[in-house]
């Protein structure tokens, strides 16, 4: 089926597939946009024109992009910073787990969209409320993955290290942490991506800048090309975060690399 040098699943094939899909989507978009007015579906040309206009106002786009970036990163840092040590405590002490987990689940069950306006009222239109909302969205996946990862250490490995004369602390650092890392990273990856959503939800609930604010503002003025630009920027942000985490994973866990 495949000619020489074109193995299924190779990097080249994936790139060509990706490019193909992008081209098809672009053509459908361009075709459809001729049927609708700009405020419903702007043409690619219209979006490029609006982008030029936006980038022409020096520093304006950068300000919105940077705002969302900072909110998401700080929110993720806070969420993960609390979730990781807590996951260790919950994995270690089943009693604490039984006490705290129902509360954590209850908080998690409240949709963040519904919680965000309250946090904006409490903490204002500025950075703080956005960081807290992003932190809340990132918190849960990091916590659950941390608990699962730390709990699922092979008990035979712990026993073997015990026979070797390792203490609890040594078993923790030499076995439990490394064996939990792949699962922990799964949580971090999800948390970082979700923190972007959290930041945008926060901006929707009341803000003066950021990519989410840009969408909110553009909706009010029927500036659909601007919405497209903001969405594209958010996608770039999410993919960027994803790539950074993937790179970190490969650096921290060289044994996971395929050979």
């Amino acid at each position, binding site marked *: 089926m495949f000619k020489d040098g074109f193995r299924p699943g190779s990097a080249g094939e994936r790139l060509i597939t990706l490019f193909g899909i992008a081209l098809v989507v672009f053509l459908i978009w361009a075709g459809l946009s001729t049927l609708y007015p700009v405020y419903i579906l702007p043409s690619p040309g219209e979006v490029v024109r609006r982008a030029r206009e936006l980038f022409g106002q020096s520093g304006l786009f950068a300000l919105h992009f940077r705002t969302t970036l900072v909110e998401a990163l700080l929110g993720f840092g806070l969420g993960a910073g609390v979730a990781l040590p807590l996951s260790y405590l919950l994995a270690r002490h089943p009693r604490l787990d039984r006490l705290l987990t129902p509360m954590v689940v209850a908080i998690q069950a409240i949709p963040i969209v519904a919680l965000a306006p309250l946090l904006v009222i409490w903490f204002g239109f500025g950075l703080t409320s956005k960081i807290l909302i992003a932190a809340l969205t990132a918190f849960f996946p990091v916590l659950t993955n941390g608990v699962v990862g730390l709990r699922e250490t092979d008990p035979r490995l712990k026993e073997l*290290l015990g*026979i*070797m*004369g*390792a203490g609890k602390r040594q078993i923790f650092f*030499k076995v439990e942490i490394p064996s939990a*890392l792949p699962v922990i990273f799964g949580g971090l990856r999800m948390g970082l991506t979700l923190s972007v959503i959290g930041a945008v939800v926060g901006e929707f609930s009341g803000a003066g800048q950021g990519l989410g604010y840009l969408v909110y503002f553009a909706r009010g003025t029927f500036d659909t090309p601007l919405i497209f630009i903001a969405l594209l920027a958010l996608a770039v942000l999410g993919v960027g975060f994803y790539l950074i985490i993937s790179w970190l994973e490969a650096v921290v866990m060289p044994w996971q690399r395929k*050979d």
Partner: protein
Amino acid sequence: MQKAIEVKNVTLAYSQDCPPELEGVNLSVAKGEFLCLVGPSGCGKSTLLRLIAGVLTPDQGEIKVFGDPKTAGWSRLSFVPQDSLLLPWRTVLDNLLLPLELNDPASGRSVWEEQARAALHLVNLDGVEDKYPHQLSGGMRQRVALARALVGRAELLLLDEPFAALDAMTRSQLHLEIMGIRQKAPFTGLMVTHNIFEAVFLADRVLVMGEKPGRILGEVKIDLAYPRALKIMSTPEFAALVGAVQELLEKGWGKNHV
């Protein structure tokens, strides 16, 4: 001669309702001796090994390793599990450093590495230092586990069905490997196995265990000369020893099954 292991009248029960896992078990292993424990599954062979390793504590009785009742700690005793249990995130070399990191922190990495490479050489595995466990075959992983048990100053190896998961050819190779290592770097060994031929081929003595409750039924002394080659398995002497072990096993079954 100094005893490497002394187990005196050991009893262990996991709960009151079941028959005890082990009842009145006595055994002793002399320094430099290689002893095999055979018996049906569930007779408590592995439990006995874990008691000696210090992971479990007996309800009654006494266990001494090199005359010392405290047994855990790699410096003199080490463990070879069935499925190698190498740390997947460590290279072969780093896996071998693990017992040294834990027990000999003063020496430092260059000394450890020298000892680790010597242990790898002992099991005929030079050149795989930088590979990860998942890049090795099952037989090679088991060799690394053996090397990890031999690294440093370990004098007593507890082997828990170390070759059970390997194919017959690889298993025979590793039997010869054990034979060779005992010549080059003598150690005391206590190995649990299901395989009577393996037990007779490797051991100085074979202890036969019975089930429910786990107990020692008897022992067969293996007075075959060293070094032993695989073809020894086709001699009448070997067959007679295998027969003697089987007879003991059968006696144990007779009590419960006939």
